[in-house]
């Protein structure tokens, strides 16, 4: 979706301001939001792609005014409500008012010690051979779905070169919406700065994205 999250190339946000000796969390609640998000994902009710789509569904004005963990909090609440796991009244009261729905899994402390609460790899066996090879010239398709995609706006419709074939992976555009993993070949595609930014490009810069095969078409 063309949301506020898709920021590459936007102007007006000012300088990058690194913080010296930055703590991992700036408040206790940030750590709790991270932990709640990972623990709920581990139940299998949804995956990381759906979590990203929930966050980018935050309306633009709100997205741009929230801190990062506030966006995570809003995304998590949205998913819990959509999946019928909690109600608005429960979120407001902090108390369970209806029986819990049985879930397939619950993340335990031992599992956290083992894999830090992260899901398994996105890598999958290839259902067919790769359409492109290193060195191929490709053009990204001009796609503007209302649904989840990992093709940023600033590279759509642009010509680039395949610099690496990265294997076959779960396709987020499908997986985010419960439509199955639909594994697709993944390529790192590099673009000259001038192809992306025209005469305003900085010299000697290239930008690459990791692009799934359905984002690409061959270029003569």
């Amino acid at each position, binding site marked *: 979706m063309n949301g506020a999250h898709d920021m590459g190339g936007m102007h007006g946000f000012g300088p990058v301001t690194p913080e010296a000796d930055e703590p991992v969390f*700036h408040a206790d609640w940030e750590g709790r939001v991270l932990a709640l998000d990972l623990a709920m994902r581990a139940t299998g009710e949804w995956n990381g792609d759906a979590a990203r789509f929930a966050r980018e569904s935050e309306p633009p004005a709100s997205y741009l005014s929230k801190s990062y963990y506030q966006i995570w909090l809003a995304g998590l609440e949205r998913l*819990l409500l959509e999946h019928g796991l909690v109600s608005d009244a429960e979120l407001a009261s902090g108390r369970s008012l209806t029986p819990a729905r049985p879930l397939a899994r*619950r993340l335990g402390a031992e599992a956290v010690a083992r894999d830090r609460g992260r899901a398994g790899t996105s890598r999958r066996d290839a259902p067919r051979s790769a359409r492109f090879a290193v060195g191929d010239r490709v053009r990204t398709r001009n796609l503007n779905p209302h649904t989840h995609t990992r093709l940023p706006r600033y590279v759509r419709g642009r010509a680039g070169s395949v610099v690496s074939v990265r294997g076959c992976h779960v396709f987020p555009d499908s997986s985010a919406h419960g439509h199955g993993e639909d594994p697709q070949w993944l390529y790192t595609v590099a673009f000259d700065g001038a192809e992306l930014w025209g005469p305003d490009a900085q010299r000697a810069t290239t930008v690459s994205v990791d692009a799934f095969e359905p984002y690409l078409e061959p270029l003569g």
Partner: protein
Amino acid sequence: MASTAHDDHAPHGGHSSELSETQVRVRALESVLVEKGYVDPAALDRLVETYETRVGPHIGAGVVAKAWTDPEFSRWLFDDTPAALASVGIAGAQGENMVALENTPAVHNMVVCTLCSCYPWAVLGLPPVWYKSAPYRARAVADPRGVLRDFGVEVGADAEIRVWDSTSELRYLVVPMRPEGTEDLTEAELAALVTRDSMIGTGQPSPAAP
């Protein structure tokens, strides 16, 4: 996104009775999820502790220092990053999708996630606020030299800058150039010079002590 919006933080010191609106919401959410049995409080505590104290840039720094001192490991790291990382105990999903990028006098690599905050948790821990902020996500791909100036990093005008936008589950680790004058340092001493930002491509390693 409010890049420096830390005005909604839990008050520190002697004002713990003042709860921010966000803090109240998070407490309510956690209470409901625990009461319903969806989450295990011990697992939540363990997650916070893991990401606050166990996982962090010291892991990546060890990998970089090993690459600086062990040419065979260095070649392996760039040829087959997941296998090389597994050999030093960095496995799991994110290790399996890692790609190491070599900085040279001719090429400076820099990593961003314009769409969200994809970051190599396995070797660097959780990302800093600036990495997730609008200014960095907006400018890294269009104005990388300006971003590097924000960090006080000078890259030669002749050097090519390669920006890697992490748009899939691949995770990138920049291996910076070894500082001059460090020939006599041990691997552990070298690891202490490797900064987090140097492994994102927005910094350089610390110089060797004179």
